[in-house]
């Protein structure tokens, strides 16, 4: 594995391999006074976030530090157009500096693919060049526009596996703004790869045209689906969706698609509730549901660090291991 750009790059075996590694790393850290493994000592991980993010950026940074990598946060803002250096030049520059891994979040779908292309091409032609023999830069997609967020899907899968003991054959609902959600895209394809039955519940305006080709089913009313779900993932609905005529009002969304306490009671007892955060309490999810025992929201965050450690390990140490 050279890059992690899309969950569609992963087959079931490699995805499970990542989850298993995450589990092993989690065990290795348990009970340690100093949470530090030497695995990636001397490796440089650069995080480049062109969009605001707290949990994902910090999660990657912590993951790198716990593996003894040198992690560097580059504050990036705005798009590359008209605001200084192009994304192409940034990718080539970071590769030339000797970054072993670039973790990138960008508002443009496909930005991570392009960064991987530029880093590779420049290494191949020698125009900028790698820093040493066999050296090369890996790119991790930490969220590209409305396309994908692969490590989020991996941490969601890890959480579901922890709570339910497995993923294959489980029915998992994804509820909300699927159209604009990179979390939904990555989850649909990864969970399907892992053998889950995925059900989408969303207003028709927030489902992409072409969703019929996805490896999932578009479900009926939320009430009708909840009793059959082993896990339900609530997506964030951004306030600006009320303006583009996607939805009549936040109130109506909460009434039709929110996970209220009454609705949560329709879930089977073993079912787990997930949310990628940040949560809009009261609209997508009732506060009591978010904080209930069935809620895995904070477990997701914890698993995020271990999954990202596993990704960095497979990318940066995988070839040598």
């Amino acid at each position, binding site marked *: 594995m050279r890059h992690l750009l899309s969950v569609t790059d992963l087959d079931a075996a490699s995805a499970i391999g990542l989850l298993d590694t995450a589990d092993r790393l989690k065990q290795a850290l348990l009970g340690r006074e100093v949470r530090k493994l030497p695995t990636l000592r001397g490796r440089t991980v650069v995080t480049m976030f062109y969009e605001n993010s707290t949990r994902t950026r910090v999660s990657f940074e912590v993951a790198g530090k716990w593996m003894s990598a040198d992690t560097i946060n580059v504050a990036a803002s705005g*798009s*590359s*157009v008209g605001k200084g250096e*192009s*994304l*192409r030049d940034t990718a080539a520059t970071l590769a030339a500096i000797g970054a072993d891994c670039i973790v990138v979040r*960008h*508002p*443009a*779908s*496909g*930005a991570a*693919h*392009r960064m991987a*292309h530029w880093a590779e091409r420049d290494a191949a032609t020698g125009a900028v060049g790698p820093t040493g023999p066999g050296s090369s830069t890996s790119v991790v997609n930490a969220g*590209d*526009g*409305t*396309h*994908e967020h692969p490590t989020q899907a991996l941490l969601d899968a890890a959480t579901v596996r922890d709570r339910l003991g497995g993923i294959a054959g489980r029915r998992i609902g994804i509820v909300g703004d699927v159209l604009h959600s*990179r979390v939904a*895209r990555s989850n649909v394809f990864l969970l399907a790869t892992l053998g889950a039955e995925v059900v989408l519940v969303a207003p028709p305006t927030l489902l*992409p*045209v*072409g*969703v*019929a*080709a*996805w490896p999932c089913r578009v479900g009926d009313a939320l009430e009708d689906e909840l009793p059959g779900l082993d896990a339900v993932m609530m997506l964030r609905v951004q306030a600006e969706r009320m303006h583009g005529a996607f939805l009549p009002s936040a109130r109506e969304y909460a009434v039709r698609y929110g996970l209220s306490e009454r609705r949560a009671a329709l879930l089977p007892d073993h079912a787990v509730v997930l949310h990628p955060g940040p949560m809009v309490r009261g609209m997508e999810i009732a506060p009591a549901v978010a904080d209930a025992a069935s809620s895995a929201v904070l477990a997701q965050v914890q698993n995020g660090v271990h999954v990202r450690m596993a990704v960095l390990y497979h990318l940066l140490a995988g070839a040598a291991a």
Partner: protein
Amino acid sequence: MTAELLIRSARPYGEGEPVDVLVRDGVVAEIGPGLAGSASVETLDADGLVLLPGLVDLHTHLREPGGEESETVATGSAAAALGGYTAVFAMPNTDPVADSAVVVEHVRRLGEEVGLVDVHPVGAVTVGLAGVRMAELGTMAASRARVRVFSDDGRCVHDPVVMRRALEYASSLDAVIAQHAEDHRLTAGAQAHEGVVAAQLGLAGWPAAAEETIVARDCALAREAGSRLHVCHVSSAHTIAVLRAAKAAGVRVTAEVTPHHLLLTDAALRDYDPVHKVNPPLRTGDDTAAMRAALAEGVIDVVATDHAPHAAQYKDTEWAAARPGMLGLQTALSVVVAACVETAMLDWRGVARVMSERPAEIGGLADQGRPIAVGEPATFCLVDPDGIWTVHGAALASRSTNTPYEGMRLPATVTATVLRGRITARDGKVAN
């Protein structure tokens, strides 16, 4: 002294036995076997190749003035001549916009100075392409540039009142309004054809309805005005049905399709290389099939390149930041051969019709797209139907390299291009 050119052993329209074509002072003087010119005659050995009337492109972006880092009239003219073209219509979305006699005459003069292809400026419909106030169509029509095609291409004339008035006004000038049919309210932020590929790639969709609805509206406006409407770069199968119905009802509407919408689909987008970003977007295999059938049927009248050069800094970016458009002039004929001739949907007569004769009629050119006959202008392209070549953007004559056909092997090569008896391109090189 008269200038003579003898084309030896060519097959007009790829039909019948090879004949010689003797040209005198830019006009076909004789056609027949075993012709001989004077002692000073220049000869072009066609060796049984296909002779077509010179190609005419209704939709070219030459970028000059203002976009010289991407293309100039000189580099675009060279690409045109090498692609078999003898006339191109240069779109007005330059800087400054070609919305006045001054700018269209400037572009016309630049074309004459280069002299490789007839450059016919297209005038803007509205001042600054802003879609609000009609540009001085009459002044541009009466200028030395003799503008007969008006378009806000790149933008749709969205206001129905402005479009109606423009259609009405243009009818008094014997001109046509060429519409970029896109309801921008339906395509806000759009990055790709709305469908399966865009859904997975997370690219905002450009719905087919945004084209279809404007074409339907404009056909109704053209019907009521009794005016000529030309629809640029039709891309959706659904638009074909609208055009067919309008034509059957007697609306004076014509339409074009680009080579890329005949051959390429949105499946090419999967690696996010913006060389495949174009407006309207690449659509599905069903759409390309519908485009080919409509072209063969005549519902779509012509192939127009929408040749849109962009310098690397505007293209080698993340997808959303990249400018839409792709090169077309040097690959158009080969793509049409691959999409329509090799599939037996068009013969060489058909190619002449959709790439030369009909575009010249729509653009109001009296001396282009003419029959290959005695007394007609000697304006041709000579095509090797068995030639195969590999496309390399860096080897094309354009100033930019944004071809979506990079590395592809395409059929048919242009061996020579002749403009009024003068060879403008030969064996892959332009005339000095």
